[in-house]
């Protein structure tokens, strides 16, 4: 089925780990998706193509660029914690948003949640995330003057809405 094939392809692009799993066990594709035998053969060949790694690299580059642009201080101060944090963030929020401000703001919320949950960062992280979050908030106020995107608690919906099934 074309829709399942496209979903599987996109999932693989977003997850180098899934690529590795399917290389080891192509039957995983049948377990997760409704695919024809030809679609299974296609995907099984594609995960072993060197270009699949490039797709994964570009996926990560496409998602990190807006965060690096909008949160230059935070991405710098997170240093070695940035890579693992982004991987966890992208696993939790698989959907992106073409309006990069939202994704950047949501990443700030994610970092703050980690701090509130007891994750230990450098002492510089909290003031910087709050500073850059406030800057983003001002920009979001400009594009959303009716506060359409803010929930009753004042938080932006993109940060608080559960992923829809």
């Amino acid at each position: 089925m074309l829709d399942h094939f496209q979903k599987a392809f996109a999932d693989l692009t977003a997850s180098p780990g899934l690529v590795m799993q399917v290389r080891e066990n192509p039957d995983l594709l049948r377990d997760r998706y409704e695919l024809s035998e030809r679609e299974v053969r296609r995907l099984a060949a594609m995960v072993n193509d060197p270009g699949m790694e490039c797709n994964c690299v570009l996926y990560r580059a496409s998602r990190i660029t807006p965060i690096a642009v909008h949160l230059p201080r935070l991405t710098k101060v997170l240093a070695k914690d940035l890579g693992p944090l982004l991987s966890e963030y992208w696993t939790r929020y698989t959907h992106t948003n073409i309006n990069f401000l939202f994704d950047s703001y949501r990443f700030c919320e994610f970092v703050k949640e980690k701090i509130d949950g007891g994750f230990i960062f450098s002492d510089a992280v909290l003031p910087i995330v709050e500073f850059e979050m406030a800057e983003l908030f001002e920009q979001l106020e400009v594009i959303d003057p009716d506060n359409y995107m803010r929930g009753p608690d004042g938080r932006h919906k993109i940060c608080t809405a559960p992923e829809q099934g």
Partner: protein
Amino acid sequence: MIENSSDNYPVVGLLYNPSVPYILCEAGDLVQYLAVIPERFRFDLDVNAAPGKRFRRLEEEIDLLKRCAEGRIVAGHGIGLSLPSAVPLDRDLLDQNASFAAELGFSWYSEHLSMFLMPHGKVPNEQAAIGLPVVYDEESFELLRDKLRVLKDALGCQLMLENGSIYTAIPEMEMTEPEFFNRLYREVDCGVLLDLHNLYVTSRHGNVDPERYLRDLDPDAVIEIHLAGGDKLSGYYTDSHSRLTPAEVWSWAHEFVPHFKNLRAITFEFHESFLERLGVSGIAGELERMHKLAECCSKTPEVSYA
């Protein structure tokens, strides 16, 4: 002003970005045409929003674009509809683009022959983050055909689809990409926006024989071409719009473009973050080369393949 602004030749221009107004101040005479991404002129707040609440227009940016567009041909180059995806057409987004097309006076409108949206996403607008290749078979053709007919009705202008950069070829296809494009042209009147740099990227990854591709493509179907340059990322050559057009791409352009008798535009794409690297003089030099290429084209060419 460059001489070849006649109706007999394709126009030369740029994909609009926030640095283009500056280019126009310095080298405006070289730019006859602007390709415009409608999605860069609004925020899409929430696909589930109540009517009238979903989009926020960026009025200052639109006013600046309108000033830049004065005396120039303008066309739309959408990135949001993801036509090959097996998801329903986003009718609200299409209506926004149609309204913008009427406001700006788009002469034609293009989208991509790539999948940006994924079906079965947990939210309606889940994005693949990069443009992924399409299965060239009957099912994809019918999906696209039906959506393109809706677009045609909404936009009322010539439509085109652009070839993407392909890093992982999909095996066991029923049609090649040129065959797929040729059918779209014959049966749906959808033209080709031939991105020669995307073809270069795809060939660098071993996924196409570019000369064969260009011979197989119906030359009448090509309405616009894109030129650009790229860089390596983690060892992979990509379409990053970060450099001037590579020599090999120019070579293909001079060999094949004169045969595209319906060609209306030659467009250079660069990302605004690379303006300093490229320099205004570098971009102006590229535009001058594009004008020389345009002079080799006419709508009734008498040249033939070697």
